[in-house]
């Protein structure tokens, strides 16, 4: 009852061809090296086999040869390194305008929240041709977001955000795996990524009735009382949050940090860890009082504040992240 079995994973993202090209290059080069060694071993074993009248000829070694077979492999290795690093650079640098999907992993499921407010479990719908950035955290242990067809993987950690991004290129349903061992049902922590034609995606989205994530965040912002200190004018007891996302922040201790996702997260959960210059450490902690989903909504809201319509800051929905050319 074997299905038809391809021996190669589907290629469904802009990264897949890059990774495959390097992999094939590595296969060819190391295949040749392996063959070289195998042929030498077999050839010597046969050619110089023990037989009457044949004597071993003692050879001490040769520095020239040793240098040759250190230096040549070394340069070959540097190509492996450089090419691999070049791909990794792209994988680790999400495009500016990428749409964002918040992801919460837990034993043993994946929860996704689109900026438009759609929530999904173990299934993620994305359209062809958009850059999608996953902003991920875990509620318990370490998991790992792995989509073989996209050739991406990123561990998902409790207590912080990690990021992965991809650019789907081909419609279809692809495996989503948890790749970091996470307990009993690790192998059950699987799902699928559904890549759709843009118009199908629009139709799927069109269901409506969802509250965009930033709107949920805005509601929480007032319900939890954040708004009493973080006012839109500069008169509050806390700093104004409009437009701070991805901007430098000067801290009380003289350091300057960038207000990225992890900074926003930490500032809500452990406000005293990094105190903004000119403010007192009076903000209460929200650790343990809000869920990861609520935290994501708050972060999404803060990111949406002071956002220009052209949108150079973050917090974009998939619909808004339409490439400029379209």
């Amino acid at each position, binding site marked *: *009852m*074997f*299905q038809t*079995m391809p021996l*190669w994973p589907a290629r469904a993202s802009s990264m897949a061809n*890059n990774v495959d090209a*390097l992999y094939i290059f*590595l296969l060819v080069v*190391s295949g040749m*090296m*392996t063959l070289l*060694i*195998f042929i*030498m*071993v077999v050839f*010597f*074993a046969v050619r*110089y*086999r*023990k037989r009457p009248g044949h*004597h*071993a*000829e*003692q*050879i*001490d*070694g040769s*520095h020239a*040869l*040793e240098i040759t077979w250190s230096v040549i*492999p*070394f340069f070959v*290795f540097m190509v492996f*390194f450089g*090419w*691999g*690093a070049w791909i*990794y650079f792209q*994988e*680790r*640098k999400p495009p500016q305008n990428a749409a964002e999907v918040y992801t919460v992993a837990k034993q043993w499921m994946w929860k996704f929240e689109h900026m438009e407010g759609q929530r999904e479990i173990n299934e993620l719908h994305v359209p062809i041709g958009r850059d999608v950035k996953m902003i991920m955290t875990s509620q*318990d242990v*370490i998991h790992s977001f*792995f989509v*073989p067809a996209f*050739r*991406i*993987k*990123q561990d998902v*950690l*409790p*207590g912080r955000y990690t990021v992965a991004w991809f650019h789907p290129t081909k419609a279809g349903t692809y*495996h989503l*795996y948890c790749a*970091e*061992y996470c307990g*009993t049902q*690790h*192998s*059950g922590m699987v799902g699928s990524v559904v890549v759709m034609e843009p118009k199908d995606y629009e139709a799927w989205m069109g269901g409506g009735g969802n509250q965009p994530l930033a709107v949920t965040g805005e509601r929480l912002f007032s319900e939890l009382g954040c708004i009493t200190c973080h006012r839109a004018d500069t008169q509050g007891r806390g700093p104004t949050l409009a437009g701070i996302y991805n901007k430098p922040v000067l801290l009380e201790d003289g350091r300057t940090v960038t207000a990225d996702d992890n900074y926003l997260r930490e500032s809500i959960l452990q406000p005293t860890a990094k105190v903004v210059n000119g403010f007192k450490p009076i903000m209460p902690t929200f650790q343990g009082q809000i869920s990861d989903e609520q935290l994501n909504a708050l972060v999404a809201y803060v990111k949406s504040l002071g956002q220009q319509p052209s949108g150079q800051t973050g917090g974009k929905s998939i619909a808004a992240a339409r490439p400029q050319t379209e």
Partner: protein
Amino acid sequence: MATAVIETGERETYLNKEYGIKSWLLTVDHKRIALLYLMGITFFFFIGGFFALLIRLELLTPAGDLVQADTYNKLFTMHGQIMVFFFLIPAVPAVLGNFLIPIMIGAKDLAFPRINLLSWYLYMIAGVMMLYTIINGGVDTGWTFYTPLSTEFLNTHVISAGLSIFVAGFSSILTGLNFVVTTHRMRAPGMTWSRLPLFVWAHYATSIIQLLGTPVLAITLVLVVAERLFHLGIFNPALGGDPLLFQHLFWFYSHPAVYIMILPGMGIVSEIVCCFSRKRVFGYQAMALALLGIAVVGFLVWAHHMFVAGISLYAALIFSILSYFVAVPSAIKVFNWTSTMYKGSISYQTPMLYAFGFIGLFTMGGLTGLFLASLGIDVHVTDTYFVVAHFHYIMVGGMVMAYLGGMHFWWPKISGKLYPEAWGRLAALLVFVGFNLTFFPQFVLGYMGMPRRYWDYSHSPEYQILNVLSTAGATVLAVGYLLPMVYFLWSMRYGKPAPDNPWNAAGLEWKIPSPPSTYNFEEQPVVTWEAYNYDELDKRAEEVPVAH
């Protein structure tokens, strides 16, 4: 000389000097301690192997149908822990190293015979703690103990497993200490550093890693146990800790540990290749330096296990490039072994077959290591079966092959008996074929995306056929491993008595009787020849023709 067959029962040897359990349990003779280790290690090898077979049987079908998910997780955890800490790390040093290092350098024993016995007791105590863990229901952290899963989320026997490995670590440290001091202080007159067999150099390099690296593992395990007991918040982010700190500490030991496992194997292969090619090793100096180079640079690459774990982009770049630096000395070694065969006079006895296997499989394991060190590739294949295949090529294809090769090579010396050569060759062939059938398909599986540590893959039935091949290979491999066990035991009773130097090999261990007497040498040997002086040996053998 090689014809001198010993009348059994006449001469006093380390084996017949004393009888009775007590004479073994209280021995300080390095050779007897080596045999004590051999029993423990063989026992754990078969336990670990049994778990492996169950894992392979479970993966025969996509559904998780043979054992429960939790049981499966325990199987791969305990398979890994037992194989790594109770077999691979001690196997060659504690058995062959223990037996041979003093003899190879012309000493009566190790520098600290009692500490040597103590390390065996520590190993056994650790082993009993591991058995206690298994019998009480096992542990399912994965051999890597990743936090916070291991510290806060599992209710299995993490503490006894952790402490067991902690104790095993001390056994390993003491063995390393003993070898370092022995190599420095106990060499016979004339046995200069540049005359040491590469086997000794390999153990010297290994011992340094054991001494410097193992304490870090011990500390890490203590922290895991403490966090589990007292919720300290070292690794658990919910308590303010950092789970990546654990990974850094763990791999700071566990990457060098992979060299603890492979370097002694490299030492064995150097001895075998020279002997069966009748040649001096090609580039002695480079071979010795490469061992030390690997040991040192091996300490600087640990975070290549963490490329997707959440380390910074630039840290990843550094650890990637450094990983390629370790590969250079490994490449030198492979080329030099091969060149040693050039213009040799090569025969294909069992040990040499294993050495051939080692060279080929270590090459493939090393080269796939280069895939993993390449960042863009690692992101896709890390934590898949590709990694599983990579390290099994090195540790099973390389290290276990070398261990078996070494056992065959020195068995006549250790036991005083010859093993049956035809069976030996058959087993070597089975191991080679079974191994490749088991692990080659896993490279393909890994690139296709099959994650490691999956109990059930019914959502991805396209992985089945390769898994079936792999399981089939594992059964062949199992037969290949059982055979030597059977005929070694058989030969102890029925084997032909071994001459002192059945291979006409170089090295002090072949100049003393098989099996040796308790103090190895009747009088202090003085070394006047270089290592691997096969030309002289062969010349002498021609003058005194050997009757075979």
